[in-house]
C-alpha cells in the first residue's frame, strides 16, 4: 500500500529531483536570462549615451557618481526610469520582495518582460513537471513537446491566478494597508510596534496570495498528472487537494519559504559583511548566483509539490 508522503519527504525528494536535472536548471536560467537581456541592452545603450557626455570622474571600481545618477534619473523615461539605487546588489532583492508586499505599481516599462516571463514559465512548467514526473531525463525534444502540449492550459491557469491576485491587491491590500494599517498603527507608541503591525498585515495578505499561487501550482500538477480534462477542472482538483491536505501543503510551503529566507538573509549578510570586497563585478556575479538559487528553489518547490500530490493521490486511490 502506498504511504501518503510527508512534506519533509516530499521536499527532500524534490531537492534530489532538481539535483538530478542540472541541465533543466541551466535551461531555465538561460530562458529567464534571454527574456531579460534585450531590455537590459536597451537600458545599457541609454546609460552609455549618458555616461559618454559626463566629465571623467576618478572613482573606485565599486563606486558610482551620485550626481550623474540624479541627473540621469531626472531625464529618465520608460525602462531608464526604473534605474534607481534599489537595483544595486542586495537592494534589488529587497526591492523585488518589498514591491510585491507593499503592492507598489509595476512600472509600465517592465510590464512587457513580466508578461513574457509569465508565458515562458507557462511553457517551462510543462517540460519541467513532465521531467520530474518521469523521474529521468526526457530530452530536449521531450521537454519542448511537453511545454507545447501544456502551454495553453498553463497560461489560462496563470491568467486566472494573476487576475485573482490583482483583485486581492485592489481590494484586500488597499483595505489592509490603508485604513486598517492607519488604525492599528494609531494604537502603537513606537516605530518597532508599527513595524510589527505591518509585518502582521504582510502575513495576512501574503497568506492570501500564497494560497492563490498554491492553487495555480497544484492545478498545473493535476494537469500533468492527467487528473483533469481542462484548466477549470485542474483548478477544481487543485482546490480539492489543498483543502484535503491543507496541513501538508502549508508545511511544505513554509519549509521552502524558510530555505528561501535563509538564502536571502545569507546574501544580505554577505553583502553587508563583505563591504567593498563584494562590490563591482563581484556583486554582479553574486547577484546572478542568487537568481540561480531562487530558480533552483522554485523548481525544487514544484518538484516537491508534485511528489506530495502524486503520493497522496496514489494513497487515496488505494
Amino acid at each position, binding site marked *: 500500500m502506498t504511504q501518503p508522503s510527508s512534506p519533509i519527504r516530499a521536499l527532500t525528494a524534490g531537492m534530489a529531483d532538481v539535483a538530478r536535472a542540472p541541465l533543466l536548471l541551466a535551461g531555465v536560467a538561460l530562458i*529567464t*536570462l534571454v527574456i531579460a*537581456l534585450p*531590455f*537590459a541592452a536597451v537600458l*545599457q545603450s541609454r*546609460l*552609455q*549615451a*549618458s*555616461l*559618454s*557626455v*559626463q*566629465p571623467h*570622474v*576618478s572613482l573606485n571600481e*565599486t*563606486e*558610482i*557618481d*551620485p*550626481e*550623474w545618477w*540624479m541627473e540621469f534619473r531626472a531625464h529618465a523615461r520608460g525602462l531608464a526610469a*526604473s534605474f534607481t539605487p534599489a*537595483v*544595486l*546588489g*542586495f*537592494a*534589488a532583492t*529587497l*526591492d*523585488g*520582495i518589498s514591491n*510585491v*508586499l*507593499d503592492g507598489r505599481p*509595476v512600472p509600465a516599462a517592465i510590464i512587457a518582460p513580466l508578461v513574457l*516571463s*509569465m508565458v515562458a*514559465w507557462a511553457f517551462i512548467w510543462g517540460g519541467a513537471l513532465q521531467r520530474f514526473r518521469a523521474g529521468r531525463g526526457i530530452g530536449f525534444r521531450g521537454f519542448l513537446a511537453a511545454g507545447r502540449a501544456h502551454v495553453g492550459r498553463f497560461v489560462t491557469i496563470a*491568467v486566472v*491566478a494573476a487576475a485573482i491576485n490583482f483583485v486581492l491587491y485592489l481590494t484586500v491590500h488597499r483595505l489592509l494597508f490603508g485604513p486598517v494599517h492607519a488604525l492599528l498603527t494609531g494604537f502603537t507608541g*513606537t*516605530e*518597532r510596534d508599527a*513595524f510589527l503591525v*505591518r509585518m502582521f498585515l504582510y502575513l495576512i495578505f501574503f497568506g492570501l*496570495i500564497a494560497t492563490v*499561487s498554491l492553487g*495555480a501550482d497544484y492545478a498545473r500538477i493535476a494537469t500533468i498528472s492527467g487528473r483533469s480534462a481542462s484548466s477549470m477542472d485542474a483548478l477544481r482538483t487543485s482546490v480539492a487537494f489543498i483543502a484535503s491536505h491543507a496541513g501538508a501543503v502549508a508545511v511544505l510551503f513554509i519549509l521552502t519559504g524558510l530555505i528561501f529566507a535563509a538564502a536571502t538573509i545569507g546574501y544580505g549578510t554577505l553583502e553587508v559583511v563583505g563591504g567593498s570586497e563584494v*562590490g563591482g*563585478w563581484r*556583486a*554582479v556575479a553574486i547577484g546572478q548566483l*542568487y*537568481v540561480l538559487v531562487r530558480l533552483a528553489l*522554485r523548481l525544487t518547490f514544484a518538484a516537491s509539490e508534485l511528489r506530495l500530490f502524486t503520493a497522496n493521490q496514489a494513497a487515496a486511490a488505494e
Partner: protein
Amino acid sequence: MQAGRLPRDGGAIEVRYLTARELSAQAPRLSTAATAAVTLLQDWFGPFPAESLTVAGTPWRGSDHGTALPGLVTAPLRWIAPVRDQSMERAIIGALVRQYFAPDVAASQPFVDSLITYAATRAVHHLLEGSNFAAPRFFGGFVPFPLRTVLLSPPVGDPRPRVAGFAELAVRTDGRDLRGVRALESLERYVGWPTMLAALSQLRMRDASEWTALALADALSTLRGTDMRFLVQECVRADAVFDYAIGDLRSQAVASGQVETTVTIVRRGTGRFAIRDNGGAAAGTLPVAVRFADGREIRDVVDGGAESATLVYTAPAPAVRAVVDPDVILLLDADRANNAVVRDAKMSKLGIRLAMHWLAWLQNTMLSYAALS
C-alpha cells in the same frame, strides 16, 4: 535626557538632548551630529543665534524632515538606523542651519528657503564627508539598506561631485526649493566655495528682510570685483529654462595637412548663464572643451548670453568630441544629453556593470511576480 555645553562667543550654549526611552541608544549620534553642526556653523556664520538649544529626537511618524523653532530643533529617530544611514544627521544639520536663517519656517521667502536648503546641503557635505551613503528604504519605509557604492558626500577636497540636494533638508516639502538650490550650487561652482561662503556670511549679517538674491549678487560682486547681478538674477529666476547644446561639430581638411574644425554652441533655453555689466558688456562664462583625434584638448570660454557662438580651430587632426560646460557647472541645464557631440564614444565598463545590476534586479522582479501566477 542628557545635557551639555557648547562654546559660543566667549560664553556657552546650554544644550539638552531629548530622546524617547526606547531610542536612547541613538542619543550619542544625536549629540555628535548637533555638536559638530553647531561648531561648523559658528565657524561659518558667527555665534549661534540662541543661548540655549534643545535637540529632540522625535519618534518617527512618517516625515524624514527635521523641524526648527528658536532654540529647539527636532529630527526623527528611526528604529532601524544603521550607521551608514545618515538621514537623522542630515535632518539635524538642516534644522540647525534654519536656526541661523529662519527658525520660523512659515515666514520665510522662496529665495530664503532655497538659501537655507543650500547652506544645509553644504554643511551636510562638510560634516558627513566619507560617511554619507544613499540608503533606500523598503517594506513600507521601515527597513533601510545603505549602499556603499553610492557615496553622497566624498571627502572635502576630493574632486568627485556631490549631490546638490537632500530630501530631508528641503524647507518646502513639495521640493520646490530644490530648483533654487541647484541655482545656488551652480553659482558656487562658478565662483568657488570660499567666495560663496564669504557672500553667505555677509548676507547673514544683514537684516532678514534683506536676504534677497540681489543682496547676494551685491556681495558676490564685491568679493569678485565683477558685476554678478545679471548672472545671479538669471539663475534664481524661477521661469528661466537653461539649455545649452552643441549645435554642430564639423571638421574639414584644409591646406598643408591641417584640418579646420568648427564648433557651434547654441542656447536653446530662455535662461542666460551670462555676465553683463552696467553697460551691457559681456564676459565669457561657459567653458567649452574640444578634443581632437590626436588626443589634444582645447578649452575655450563663450558668452552664455549669446544665442549662439562659433569657435573655429585649425589643427593637425579632426575633432572627435565637443562639450559645452564639460565640468558641469550649470546644474540647471535642462538637458545635458545635448551638451556634447561625441564621435569617439567608447563602451564604458561602468555602463555595462550598471546594466548588469539592473538585469539582476529585473530577473528578481520577474521571479517575484511570476510567483503570483
